[in-house]
C-alpha cells in the first residue's frame, strides 16, 4: 500500500528521514477522523451559547425549535442526564478537565459562550437552524472581565504545575538590581491566543448499552478521558472505550472540555448515537486558549554582561477557580546564571472560558519577555546578544543546583550563528535598508523542559512469521508518532521497518500518557524498552535447552537481525521464527510499564535552542515580514530528521503568528470573544512563511529513554522574542506588546513618505 519508501526494508532506521507511514492515508483523504465515523441512526447536535458572562438562565423558550421538523430533542440543564463534576488535570490523577464546573447540571452561566442548550436533530442543518430559534432569558450578574482593572487583586496560586510559585535564590534581587551598573526593567504584555487546529473539535458518542459507552473523540488525552468519564458518569473504566486514531491538530486544545460531556449526554437523552462537531465559533466559545499576561522582567548586570539580578514576575488572566497559571517564569528558572533570582507569578481570576495548555504554555510567552529583556540589556552594554547569553551560561541549574543531564546550548548557538551568518549583522539599529524596507536580525533562546510521564505501558507481540506488532494507546495528531515509534521498535527488535506495525489511538490498547508536555515519544519509548526487556526473557525461556542460546542469561543476549543472539558473537543465536516454531507457538507477547521517570528527579533536564531570524519592516505600512529563519536546537537524539524538522518548523510558524498576527479579541464589557473566526483570527498563511532552516546537535541525553527529548513545543519558544529583537535591529523601535501589528510599528516609526531617516530608539 505504501509507495516505494526505501527505508522500509532497512534495519535500524533510527536517525533516518523515513517518510510518514500514515502518509498515503492522509494525502488520499482516507485517514478517518472523529467526525467521520457513521454509526446507524446517527443524530446531530448543535449548541446554543450563553449571551451573558455571568448570571442565571431564568427561562428557555424552545417551542419553535421543538416544532421544527427533524428535531429529535432539546437538552438543557432541566433535562440533561445527571453527571458528576469532572476531576481536574494535575490535581487529580484521574482528571483531565481544566475546568471542573458541572456541565449543564444547573442554571448558572459561568462565561459568555458557555453552552446553555443543545439541539439534537436528524441532520446538522436542522440542528443549527433549530438552535438559532431557541430563546434564552437570563438574570445577569456583574462579571469580572477587566484584567487591567483587577490586576491589583491578583493572587498568587498555591503552585505552578506542582513547582513553587515563587523562587528566590542568591540574595535580594531587588537590591542587587538597584545597585547594578547596567539595568533593564520593563513590562511586556501578551494577549489571549487560541489553538485553532484546522480540524474542528468533534465527537461521535455511541451508548452501546445503558452502561457502555464508545466515544470517537478528537483527543490528545485518551487514557485520562476514560478515567475522567468513569468518575463523571459513575461507570467502570472498562465500560468506556475512546478511539482517536487521527487527530486533526491539537496543540493542547484537543481534550476533555464541556463539549465532551454535552455529546455524551445528548446521546443518552436522544437514545441514539450523536455527533457533535463544534462550529469554528463554537471552538472559540467553548474551548479556552492561552491566557493573556502582563510580565515584568528586570535585569541587573556588570559591564562584562554577567547578571547580578534576574527578576521575572507578573500575572495572567484565568478563569475563576481554575488551575492553569501559565508557567511564564519557568525559562528564567533554568537559563541564566544570575547572582540573584526573584521569580514570582500571580493570577487574575475572571469570568471567562478556562485557559488551557496551548503549545508551550507559559514558556512561549515567558520567553518573549525574558529574551526581549536580554536583547535590551545587550544593546545597553553594546555587547553581542549571543555573547551576552554565553557569558551567563550556568554550570548547574540556577534554581536548585542540580546537574544538567546534557546541555549544549553554547554549541547550538555557535553552529546556528555560523549557518545564519550572524557575524554579518550590523548591531546598530536602523542601518540596513532596501527601499522602503528596514531590515534587521534578531536572536533568542528557545527553552522547554524535558518531561516524561509515569505509567505509560506498551505491548510487543512477535509472530512466527517474523513480524512484530507494538501497541500503546498513544496519539497521532501530526507528530509522526506511528512512524517514529515503529522506527524505534524496529531498531530494538532488529527487524526491518516494514515488519513492524505500531497500533495506537484506542483505549482498548495498553494505557499511555497523554500527548502533552512534549512527552509522548520518550514516554512510549520508555514503555517499549521495558516491554522489550520482558520479551527477551520470554524468548529465552521459549528457546529452551535445544537452542544454541541455552544457558545464556537475559543480559548476555540481544535482539538483532530478526532474532535473539549472544552479545558480541555474530554467529550464536537464532531467528524469532525458529524459536517460536520449535516452542510450538505462533507468537510471543509481553506488556510492561516504562520505568518511573527518575531521571527528572535526579537531573535538571532541558531542551534548548537558538532562534535566529531576519525581518523586513515597511516604513510606510508598518508591515513586518519574516524573511529568513534558522532554528538551532539541542534536544537530545533525533529519531527521524524529516518528522522532527516538521515539528520544529511547525512550532516556529506558530511562533511567527504569535508574534505578528494572532490575537483573540475580548470585549471587556460583555465578556464575549469578538473574532471567533479564521477570517478574523489571523493564522500565518503560506505567504507569511519563509523557508525555515532547522539544525540540531543530535547529542543523545544519556538520562532519557532512547536519548530523546520531546520537540513538539520548543519550536514556538523564543520566536516572538527573536522577532521583536529583529524589529529593534531593523528600526530601533522596541515593541513590548504582542502581537506586533502594523499600528504598533507605525506608532513608533511613522514618518512622511519619502523621508526615510535612521530611526532612533
Amino acid at each position: 500500500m505504501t509507495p516505494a519508501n526505501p527505508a522500509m526494508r532497512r534495519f535500524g532506521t533510527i536517525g533516518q528521514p523515513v517518510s510518514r507511514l500514515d502518509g498515503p492515508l492522509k494525502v488520499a483523504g482516507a485517514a478517518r477522523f472523529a467526525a467521520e465515523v457513521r454509526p446507524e441512526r446517527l443524530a446531530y447536535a448543535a449548541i446554543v451559547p450563553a449571551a451573558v458572562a455571568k448570571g442565571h438562565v431564568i427561562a428557555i423558550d424552545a417551542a419553535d425549535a421543538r416544532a421544527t421538523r427533524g428535531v429529535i430533542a432539546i437538552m438543557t440543564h432541566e433535562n440533561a442526564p445527571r453527571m458528576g463534576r469532572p476531576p481536574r488535570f494535575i490535581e487529580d490523577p484521574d482528571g483531565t478537565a481544566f475546568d471542573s464546573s458541572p456541565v449543564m447540571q444547573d442554571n448558572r452561566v459561568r462565561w459568555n459562550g458557555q453552552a446553555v442548550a443543545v439541539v439534537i436533530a436528524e441532520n446538522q442543518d436542522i440542528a443549527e437552524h433549530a438552535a438559532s430559534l431557541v430563546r434564552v432569558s437570563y438574570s445577569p450578574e456583574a462579571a469580572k472581565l477587566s484584567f487591567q482593572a483587577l490586576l491589583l487583586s491578583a493572587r498568587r496560586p498555591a503552585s505552578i504545575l506542582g513547582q513553587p510559585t515563587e523562587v528566590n535564590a542568591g540574595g535580594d534581587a531587588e537590591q542587587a538590581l538597584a545597585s547594578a551598573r547596567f539595568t533593564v526593567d520593563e513590562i511586556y504584555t501578551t494577549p489571549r491566543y487560541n489553538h485553532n487546529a484546522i480540524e474542528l473539535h468533534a465527537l461521535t458518542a455511541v451508548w452501546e448499552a445503558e452502561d457502555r459507552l464508545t466515544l470517537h473523540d478528537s483527543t490528545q488525552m485518551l487514557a485520562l478521558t476514560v478515567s475522567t468519564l468513569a468518575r463523571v458518569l459513575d461507570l467502570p473504566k472498562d465500560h468506556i472505550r475512546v478511539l482517536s486514531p487521527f487527530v486533526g491538530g491539537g496543540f493542547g486544545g484537543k481534550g476533555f472540555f464541556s463539549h465532551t460531556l454535552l455529546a455524551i449526554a445528548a446521546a443518552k437523552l436522544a437514545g441514539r448515537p450523536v455527533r457533535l462537531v463544534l462550529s469554528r465559533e463554537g471552538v472559540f466559545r467553548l474551548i479556552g486558549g492561552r491566557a493573556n499576561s502582563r510580565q515584568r522582567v528586570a535585569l541587573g548586570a556588570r559591564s562584562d554582561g554577567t547578571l547580578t539580578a534576574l527578576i521575572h514576575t507578573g500575572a495572567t488572566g484565568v478563569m475563576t477557580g481554575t488551575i492553569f497559571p501559565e508557567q511564564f517564569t519557568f525559562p528564567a528558572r533554568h537559563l541564566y546564571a544570575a547572582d540573584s533570582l526573584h521569580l514570582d507569578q500571580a493570577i487574575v481570576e475572571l469570568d471567562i472560558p478556562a485557559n488551557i495548555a496551548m503549545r508551550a504554555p507559559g514558556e512561549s510567552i515567558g520567553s518573549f519577555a525574558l529574551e526581549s529583556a536580554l536583547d535590551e540589556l545587550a544593546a545597553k552594554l553594546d555587547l553581542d546578544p549571543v555573547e551576552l547569553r554565553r557569558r551567563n551560561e550556568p554550570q548547574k541549574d540556577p534554581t536548585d543546583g542540580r546537574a544538567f543531564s546534557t546541555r549544549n546550548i553554547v554549541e547550538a548557538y555557535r553552529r546556528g550563528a555560523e549557518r545564519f551568518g550572524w557575524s554579518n549583522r550590523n548591531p546598530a539599529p536602523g542601518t540596513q535598508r532596501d527601499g522602503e524596507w528596514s531590515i534587521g536580525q534578531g536572536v533568542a533562546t528557545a527553552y522547554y523542559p524535558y518531561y516524561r510521564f509515569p505509567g505509560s505501558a506498551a505491548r510487543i507481540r512477535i509472530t512466527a512469521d517474523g513480524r512484530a506488532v507494538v501497541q500503546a494507546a498513544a496519539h497521532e495528531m501530526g507528530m509522526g508518532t506511528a512512524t517514529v515509534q515503529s522506527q524505534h521498535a524496529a531498531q530494538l527488535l532488529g527487524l526491518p521497518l516494514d515488519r513492524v506495525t505500531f497500533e495506537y489511538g484506542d483505549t482498548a490498547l495498553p494505557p499511555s500518557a497523554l500527548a502533552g508536555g512534549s512527552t509522548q515519544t520518550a514516554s512510549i519509548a520508555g514503555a517499549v524498552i521495558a516491554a522489550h526487556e520482558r520479551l527477551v526473557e520470554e524468548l529465552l525461556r521459549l528457546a529452551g535447552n535445544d537452542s544454541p542460546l541455552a544457558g545464556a542469561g537475559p543480559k548476555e543476549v540481544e535482539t538483532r537481525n530478526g532474532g535473539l543472539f549472544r552479545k558480541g558473537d555474530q554467529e550464536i543465536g537464532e531467528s524469532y521464527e525458529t524459536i517460536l516454531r520449535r516452542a510450538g507457538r505462533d507468537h510471543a507477547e509481553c506488556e510492561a510499564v516504562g520505568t518511573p521517570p527518575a531521571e527528572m528527579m535526579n537531573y535538571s533536564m532541558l531542551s534548548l535552542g537558538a532562534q535566529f531570524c531576519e525581518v523586513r519592516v515597511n516604513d510606510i505600512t508598518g508591515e513586518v515580514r519574516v524573511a529568513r529563519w534558522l532554528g538551532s536546537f539541542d534536544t537530545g537524539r533525533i529519531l527521524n530528521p524529516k518528522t522532527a524538522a516538521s515539528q520544529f518548523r511547525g512550532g516556529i510558524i506558530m511562533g511567527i503568528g504569535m508574534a505578528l498576527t494572532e490575537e483573540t479579541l475580548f470585549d471587556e464589557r460583555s465578556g464575549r470573544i469578538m473574532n471567533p473566526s479564521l477570517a478574523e483570527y489571523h493564522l500565518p498563511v503560506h505567504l507569511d512563511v519563509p523557508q525555515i532552516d532547522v539544525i540540531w546537535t543530535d547529542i543523545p541525553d544519556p538520562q532519557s529513554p532512547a536519548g530523546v527529548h520531546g520537540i513538539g513545543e520548543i519550536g514556538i519558544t523564543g520566536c516572538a522574542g527573536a522577532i521583536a529583537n529583529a524589529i529593534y535591529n531593523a528600526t530601533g523601535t522596541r515593541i513590548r506588546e504582542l502581537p506586533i501589528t502594523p499600528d504598533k510599528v507605525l506608532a513608533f516609526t511613522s514618518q512622511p513618505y519619502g523621508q526615510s531617516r535612521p530611526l532612533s530608539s
Partner: protein
Amino acid sequence: MHFAINGRSYDVELDIRTSLLDLLRDRLGLTGTKKGCDQGACGACTVLVHGERILSCLALAVQYQRREIMTIEGLGTPNALHPLQQGFIAHDGFQCGYCTPGQILSAVGLARELQNGVPSAVTANLTDDAVEVTADEVRERMSGNLCRCGAHNGIVEAVLEYLREPPETGAAR
C-alpha cells in the same frame, strides 16, 4: 438531484439548503473533503469543479448538479497516489493531515491557473503570456489554504516540484 463526482453519478434527495461540503461528507460519505470553518476562511473543503478550485462549504449543492466535481478520492487512492500526493509525502507537506486534501486539490487547480497564464498579486510582469513559477507565486496562490501544523515549507516544495517537473499529463508553464 443528480451529481457527477469523480466520474460517478449520484442521485440523492436533498434539502436545498445543503452545502456541497455537507453533501460530500454527510450524505455521500466522501469524507476526504474536510470541514475546518464552514465559512470560506480555511480552504480545507477545496474541491475542483471542471478543474477549477472552489470552496465547497460556500457552495450550495443544488447549484452544482451535473457539473464535473472532483474530490480527493477522485485524484488518487492510498494504493495509487497521484504524483502530487506522492510529493506531499516525500517533502513532508503535512503533519496531522487534516488540511491536506484541500491543499492538494488547491495545488492541482493552481497548476491549471498557471497553465492558463492567470496572474496573481505577486506576479511581477502582468503583460507576459506565461507566469513564471516561483516559490512566492506558489505561496501567494496557496494562501487560501490554512495549515496550523506548519507544513508550509514542505507543501511549497512539493507543489514547486510538481509544477517544474510535471508528470506525463503535463501541467504548468
